[in-house]
């Protein structure tokens, strides 16, 4: 009977081999997918027992930290802890909530989600450290993330935004970039929320806090700076001007048509100027003056003359209509046009209406490129990634976005934008003359109510300073005119916010 016994042994051996192969497949081949499935409670539970890394700013402000709880084994996640205590500063937490996101037992979002591997200590770069720590009996620790944000700027943005919005129930956003490096210095979205309740270890309480915020009026969980797409209105004239200046036919002193109203070909509907004003004298003015006074008719006619192809190409060079670059937060794509535009549509698109929709972050990229001699740098939010022992694992940097306009054109645009602030629509906004700010206002119509009454306009201001300790590009967006209703303009609502943020970020020369 030995022969069949031997064959039986081989057969049983094959069964074991099948088990071993299957085990390898499940625990190695499938492990990554299994661990990242949404309904897997283990990573969330593991989060409770991990000393998760910090999210902090360069000046030492701590935005998120893990605090050992009373049972000595689990950790609580606290956002914006008051230094020296384990209490949270709810106001500061709300200022940064859209960026930090939260990490709790029910879900993660924001930086907590995009940098989860590092913060939880699972990053490949920490593998050797983790191994030696295990041998030495030390608790596993997560790495830390240092963001590029500037505390003073973020605070100024928030205070200013909240003043502009008052109790109107409207929303707004502010983005500030360092012109030369692409660092995101301010990323604010109002209304915001306190992430601490959602990060509670009590799953039921956390879920309830999340559900309440989901249903809250004003939609505080929505990050307007990166996800909101709004018509830029006159602010888009920067792109139209850039297109014109890039051809050989225009310069800031070129005189162009600026009629009282402009009726594009193939239509009988006239495009008026703001409040029916006249631009220039005798229906003509220079390109520089047209931008300074934000003349609709001039740019509408200019847009039709330039044609869709040139305008679209220039817009795409700035990033509008292209897929958004890699960014740690979800970032919606901006649009210039959907499909072929007929002359009326083109005229309206040239002045930032019709289908044109920008995210505030995209708008900031436009002014960053102009301020950087036409060289676009994609924005980045993570300044440094640190190991638990504070050694640097990586530094962030913006990617090269290409030469969007020549330095010559950039200089001409800067000259025109300075005119906007010195004698144009933004003259009364109170910018510090020492900073020599260059900018553009935007007041965008965005539809009517059901009764046919015009909705209060969306207001924008985008600008950068040309003098001072550093060059920053700032964009402020306020929905529905904030508290000013139908009379709101970019100059009166959004520009003061940019002014306050610039004052917080930049030291004037000589000080």
């Amino acid at each position, binding site marked *: 009977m030995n022969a069949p016994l031997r064959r039986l042994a081989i057969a049983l051996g094959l069964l074991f081999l099948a088990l071993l192969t299957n*085990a*390898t497949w499940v625990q190695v081949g499938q492990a990554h997918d*299994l661990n990242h499935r949404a309904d897997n409670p283990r990573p969330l539970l593991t989060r409770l027992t991990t000393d998760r890394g910090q999210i902090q700013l360069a000046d030492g402000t701590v935005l998120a930290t893990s605090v050992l709880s009373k049972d000595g084994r689990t950790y609580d996640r606290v956002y914006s802890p008051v230094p020296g205590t384990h209490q949270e500063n709810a106001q500061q937490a709300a200022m940064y909530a859209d960026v930090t996101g939260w990490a709790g037992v029910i879900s993660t979002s924001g930086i907590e989600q995009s940098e989860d591997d590092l913060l939880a200590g699972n990053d490949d770069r920490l593998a050797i450290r983790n191994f030696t720590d295990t041998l030495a009996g030390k608790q596993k620790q997560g790495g830390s993330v240092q963001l590029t944000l500037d505390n003073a700027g973020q605070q100024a943005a928030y205070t200013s935004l909240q003043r502009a919005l008052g109790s109107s129930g409207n929303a707004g956003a502010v983005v500030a970039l360092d012109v030369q490096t692409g660092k995101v210095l301010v990323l604010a979205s109002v209304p915001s929320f306190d992430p601490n309740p959602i990060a509670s270890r009590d799953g039921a309480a956390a879920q309830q806090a999340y559900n309440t915020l989901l249903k809250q009026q004003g939609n505080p969980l929505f990050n307007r700076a990166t996800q909101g797409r709004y018509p830029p209105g006159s602010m888009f004239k920067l792109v139209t001007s850039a297109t014109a200046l890039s051809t050989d036919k225009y310069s800031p002193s070129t005189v162009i048509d600026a009629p009282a109203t402009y009726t594009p070909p193939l239509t009988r509907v006239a495009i008026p100027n703001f409040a029916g004003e006249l631009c220039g004298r005798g229906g003509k003015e220079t390109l520089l003056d047209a931008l300074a006074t934000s003349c609709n008719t001039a740019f509408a006619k200019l847009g039709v003359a330039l044609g869709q192809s040139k305008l679209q190409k220039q817009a795409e060079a700035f990033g509008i209509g292209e897929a958004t670059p890699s960014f740690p937060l979800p970032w919606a794509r901006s649009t210039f046009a959907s499909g072929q535009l007929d002359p009326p549509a083109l005229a309206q698109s040239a002045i930032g209406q019709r289908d044109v929709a920008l995210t505030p972050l995209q708008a900031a990229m436009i002014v960053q490129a102009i301020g950087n001699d036409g060289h676009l740098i994609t924005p980045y939010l993570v300044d440094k990634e640190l190991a638990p022992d504070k050694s640097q694992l990586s530094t962030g940097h913006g990617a090269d976005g290409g030469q969007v306009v020549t330095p010559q054109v950039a200089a001409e645009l800067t000259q025109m934008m300075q005119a906007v602030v010195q004698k144009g629509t933004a003259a009364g906004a109170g910018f510090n003359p020492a900073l020599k700010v260059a900018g553009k206002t935007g007041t965008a119509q965005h539809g009517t109510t059901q009764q046919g009454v015009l909705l209060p306009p969306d207001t924008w201001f985008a600008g950068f300073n040309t003098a001072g300790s550093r060059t920053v590009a700032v964009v402020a967006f306020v929905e529905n005119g904030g508290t000013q209703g139908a009379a709101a303009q970019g100059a009166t609502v959004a520009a003061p916010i940019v002014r306050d943020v610039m004052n917080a970020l930049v030291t004037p020369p000589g000080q």
Partner: protein
Amino acid sequence: MTTASASASLARGRRGAELALLLFGVALAAAGQACVVIARTNALSGRIAADAGVLLVLAVVMHVAVRRFAPYADPLLLPLVVMLSGLGLTLIGRIDDSLRGTNYASLQLVWLAIGTGVFVIVLGAVRDHRTLARFGYTAALGGLVLLLLPAVLPARFSEVNGARVWIRFSGFSLQPSEIAKVLLIVFFAAYLVAKRDVMSVVTRSFLGLQLPRARDLGPVLVAWIASLAVLSRENDLGQSLLLFGVFVAMLYVATQRGSWLVIGLVLFAGGAYFAYHAFAHVRERFDIWLHAFKPSYVHDQSYQLVQGLYGFGGGGLLGTGLGRGHPQIVPYARTDFIFAALGEELGLVGVIAVLVCYAIIVQRGLRAAIGVRDSFGKMLAGGLAASLALQVFVIVGGVMRLIPLTGLTTPFLSYGGSSLVANFAIIALLLRVSDAARRPPPAIRADSPYGDAPTSVVRSAEAQTVVVSRVGAATEDPENGA
């Protein structure tokens, strides 16, 4: 002369090696226990030493029994079993700790002591495994009674989670099918040895197979129908699968006819098809296996399987470390899904190590079967080894989604008194056969007149008998007629 004494010196007892391996196994279990305690409480506790001490005492008792009753047995079997039992204790205790307020580890220790007792009794009472062959039909009767007892008891004494495989009384739960399995294997071995010549007779060829006689199919069909009956009355998919598989394997070994394997497979396939269509819970098991991650199943029917898989994934290559995972999330983590707890905390490395341990136990059992000289011993050891292998394959395969899940226990690891006791009995029997296999043949006495004389076969012309005579001494020895 030289061959006899040479073989005597070759057949060493190897009990020293066994003792050393036992100590290593207990130390390993203690180290695992220490890992859990440190991970959970950040401090050592006297409990580690106490548990290790009890395990050591039981191991030494079993070792002494082996020295006394089966001194030539394989030295690997007992240490492996003790180590797996210790590991099981550690895992059960670890799950206890997470579930606050349950203390199944102590109960398992009690059952381990009972298992030790049974081990010693079996090893001591069965001095020659061939005596069991005489009790074949008794064993069959006992086995069937134990198997069907839960089916005839009212549901409140016998049903747990839809499977009527238990006998419950005054706080205790027994799974008689585990013990029935051992008795039935003894019966199969005895029956097949007696009838194997008969069952090897072939009548005709069919598709290249030598088919046996129709009347010899009878016992196989009886076994098949009995399995299905067990399945239908008791909803015990795993046990019926196991019994049928072991029987077919033993049938093949006894008759060496591949046709029995084919018939067995055909019957199995037919039975599976029938079961799939007739029994809803079988359909459900198949469905869960195929569509485990369907969104509507994940929180309902396939929750246990999916959570187990998440545990394996969470363990990855090296595991989360003993005490640092979340095995208690998986339902029935200490019984059916103890392997998921192992996979999560000790990782793929731990899984492979434990599977290799099981493979070695099976291999040693088969080694004993090949080495022993009598057919009944071969059948018995072969059948017991095959049953262990199949059981491990069915439960680990089910837990890791290689095959549909069934409710079998993981030998030595999972919590369960009846399973532990039955498996210790199996190991005792395997040691008994192994001892017989490795025991040196009785030495021929030095003063025997025959000594090492060569032998030859002489056929007598008148009688139809064969006489063996000693050629060298024949002419001188008056006792041997020429």
